[in-house]
């Protein structure tokens, strides 16, 4: 996850490695707005998702939030630690609280996402 993050307006982040696999999570802004996360429902490994489609649900003490995949592709891994430790999303939204890894099917979608600066403006 050394590559710079890109963000969706719906508050998910994406970080792509050299092999074209992206890690997806929710932003610090999003976790802070949600409050303590108590359940996470993740997609199945092997599932194909389209950009902007509902892919996961993050449920906090306050509310249930749909997570929209910022990119299209095939789910190759999910963060199983969230099952027993959903609070990782609060304590470490951009590292330990990642949601899933996805093999990108359309690299061009990354160009439609926001960089740090543009995302910060969305949150302001």
């Amino acid at each position: 996850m050394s590559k710079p993050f890109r963000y969706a307006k719906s508050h998910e982040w994406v970080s792509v490695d050299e092999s074209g696999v992206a890690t997806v999570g929710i932003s610090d802004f999003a976790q802070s707005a949600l409050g303590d996360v108590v359940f996470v429902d993740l997609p199945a490994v092997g599932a194909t998702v389209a950009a902007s489609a509902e892919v996961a649900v993050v449920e906090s003490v306050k509310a249930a939030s749909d997570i929209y995949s910022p990119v299209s592709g095939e789910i190759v891994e999910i963060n199983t630690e969230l099952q027993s430790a959903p609070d990782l999303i609060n304590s470490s939204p951009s590292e330990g609280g990642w949601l899933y890894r996805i093999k990108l099917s359309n690299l061009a979608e990354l160009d439609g996402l926001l960089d740090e600066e543009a995302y910060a403006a969305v949150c302001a």
Partner: protein
Amino acid sequence: MSKRTALYQKHLDAGGKIVDFAGWEMPINYGSQLGEHKQVREHAGVFDVSHMTIVDITGADALAYLRKLVTNDVAKLDVPGRALYTGMLNESGGVVDDLIVYRLQEHYRLVVNCATRDKDIAWLAKVAKGFAVSLTERPELAILAVHGPEAIERVCSLLPAEWVTVVSALGNFRCVELKDWFIARTGYTGEKGLELMLPATLAPAFWDQLLAAGVLPIGLGARDTLRLEAGMNLYGHDMDESISPLAANMEQTISWLPPERDFVGRAAVTLHKQQQLEGNLPILTGLVLESRGVLREGQKVITDKGDGIITSGSFSPTLNCSIALARVPVQSSVCHVELRGGMTPVRLVKPNFVRFGKKVFE
């Protein structure tokens, strides 16, 4: 124009995330609602509840007035230093508010909800017609609730020695005036603790002392999950002016005896009692979701006896699952809620989930 308590700056200093609560800028949490909840269940926490409304009742007819105003019988407070929880009803038997009545040396004190302050004040004045009473709000007092298994000990460590004996000996729903402070063994968490009413000018320094003594600040978020676990109602959610106290698990706050005491709403709620006996009045019950997900206010509850509704729902940090209060047809047994996964079974339990840190239902 939003209002702030005397502790507003202290909330900011403690990292409080401020939200609007009925026109007041109050802390929803100071970082982690779950952490704050556990702090109260396991140690001690302090809530600033200065936004709640204190009304002192004085005058020759104070007792007669209160026996008219509220469903519980204030004559039960046979000596100063006692308190009771009660509802006050409108003429049609709906709940105007729930409140605590304290008997002090020379007068009575009511603490009513913040969100209902304006209508409560108007209602108190309306019922007061014909009684020789004076109603005085006390906005110059702050209210701190300190709750948790270590709460009383921590508070006592900060009080003058001559107060400690009396405060540490207070029983549940007992209270005492100590100079310009008023300290009561009441609260909204299901834990032991104290509510302290003190001059607002003194509150910031006392807050600092509490924090230095290891009591952590607790926001309104954890206050809500704590009271829900304790099965305590939240006005405007679990009951309101359209709901009979009998359909809101508040029957224990009604003193039917003596029969000649004519409290406001008595005739109407007597009819509700008849409906209840005929099986035609819903009940407020507890729900437990044993699978994943969180029950939320407003969700429909489908039972074998008809539909009901969730009036308060959240995640229970103590039980590590979701719990709710719901108004459902009487004698419902099989119960489902429509969640994301479809129709999900929920278990009906008595509306009291956690006391003194422990699960209390079967």
